[in-house]
């Protein structure tokens, strides 16, 4: 299964790392990398990227990042998985390379950053959510803005940055593309759970979307977000 963050605990925790893999010696990683570089069909590429991703090796980062741009959706999904598993070590390379990409690859890179949840990605996510012309990039970043690991930021910065995220998500709620608005609702839900101070404001925003959005899927996602927030309020009040 792809990287996933459960709804009820999306912000507070890093997806748990699986047990460390059996140590693989460098030459094995190099072999896996070479298999990706030499793959001569999309099926072989997919398999090679899946194997490299499973190795969870930092050295695989550049190759996995390159695989985001091969225009092979299966391989890109596997590469995002792999980068999310590598985690923090993949953040800086992703941030450095993000501008060089075509928009398809940029969306995957943003997805990887969102999956990792490292707060260093905040400015990139804010910028992408607010200004990117590609709807897939805006979608992935709206999702990511909710699920950042906010607790890694010092408290005084956290409030400021969460307010910035809220502002960007409110903007994304008016996006012409339904899927960006849908993603923004998931972001708002996660942000409200991460920061109870923002919850009342977000609840108001969700009510507004429930009444005005033209897409049933978006309104339905709001319904679920409202239920989740209700549950989390009950939990925090007890």
């Amino acid at each position, binding site marked *: 299964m792809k990287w996933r963050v459960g709804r009820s605990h999306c912000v507070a925790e890093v997806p748990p790392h699986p047990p460390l893999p059996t140590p693989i010696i460098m030459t094995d990683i190099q072999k896996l990398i070479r298999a990706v570089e030499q793959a001569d069909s999309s099926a072989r590429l997919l398999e090679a990227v899946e194997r490299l991703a499973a190795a969870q090796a930092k050295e695989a980062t550049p190759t996995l990042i390159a695989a985001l741009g091969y225009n092979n959706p299966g391989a890109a999904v596997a590469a995002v998985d792999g980068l999310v598993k590598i985690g923090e070590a993949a953040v800086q390379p992703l941030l450095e390379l993000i501008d060089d990409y075509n928009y398809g690859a940029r969306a995957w890179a943003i997805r990887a950053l969102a999956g990792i949840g490292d707060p260093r990605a905040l400015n990139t996510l804010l910028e992408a959510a607010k200004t990117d012309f590609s709807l897939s990039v805006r979608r992935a970043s709206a999702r990511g803005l909710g699920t950042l690991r906010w607790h890694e930021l010092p408290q005084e910065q956290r409030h400021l940055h969460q307010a910035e995220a809220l502002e960007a998500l409110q903007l994304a709620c008016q996006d012409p593309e339904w899927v960006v608005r849908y993603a923004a609702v998931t972001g708002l839900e996660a942000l409200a759970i991460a920061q109870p101070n923002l919850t009342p404001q977000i609840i108001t925003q969700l009510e507004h979307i429930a009444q005005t959005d033209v897409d049933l899927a978006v309104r*339905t996602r709001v319904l679920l977000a409202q239920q989740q927030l209700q549950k989390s309020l009950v939990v925090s009040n007890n």
Partner: protein
Amino acid sequence: MRNSSSENFANSPSTDNAVDGDSLTVEQAIANLESADLGLRFYAAWWLGKFRVCEEAAVKGLIKALDDEDDKTPEGGYPLRRNAARALGKLGDQQAVPALIKSLECSDFYVREAAAQSLEMLGDPACVPTLSKLLAFGLHGEQLLTQQPDFSQPYDAILEALGTLQATETIPLVKPFLEHPIERVQYAAARAMYQLTKEPGYGERLVHALKNDNLQLRRTALADLGSIGYLPAAEAIAQTLAENSLKLIALKGLLEHQVNQTHPPALSAGAIKVIDLMDSLL
């Protein structure tokens, strides 16, 4: 949200998608439908559809464009008619139905295809007899023509329209197309048969198609499953090797179908499952 006044239109979020700043006003676009410049006519017809300008004058102008004889390619195609037919489906005005039915008999394949798609969107069963007649071109009795592949009619668009229009009387005509040599047409037939019979076997055919080696066909199957809202496909859609954006659109179809079946709209277990999958693809 969609509205017809040109003033409000300027604020419509859809304008964010306008191409290269080439902006028209509604009045200009309508006037351009009769411009001496064929390129401007062609662009105006597309533009009115893209921005769903549901004004009476736009609808009337586009209907008139369905009879255009000026914009004709050496191969006998009618580019303006194609765009006009596509736009009329998006505008949702029922007065276009008779003219679109007539366009189903146009000599240009792509005009017939666009007309079938737009008639599907407009949802008026008045077009069923003409659609059935077109479909019958591909049949000898209740069997496919022996000479295949047969590209003479836009069979996929016709099949999809008949399914959406719930034209159950056409089942005997639709069914043979499940064996059509063109996979895209097979999928359209499966989609229509599911809509006409609700038999899961037809939905499962489309689920199976998600594993096709050809990416384009996987995308087609995703779109088909989204259109019929076939819930058992949810997990398979999420796992399909295709772009997340297309999987999300397909799952949106499933979700909305689920919600529409519960009164008042509520979150069924099926709906929540689809939402979880959608969230994982964002």
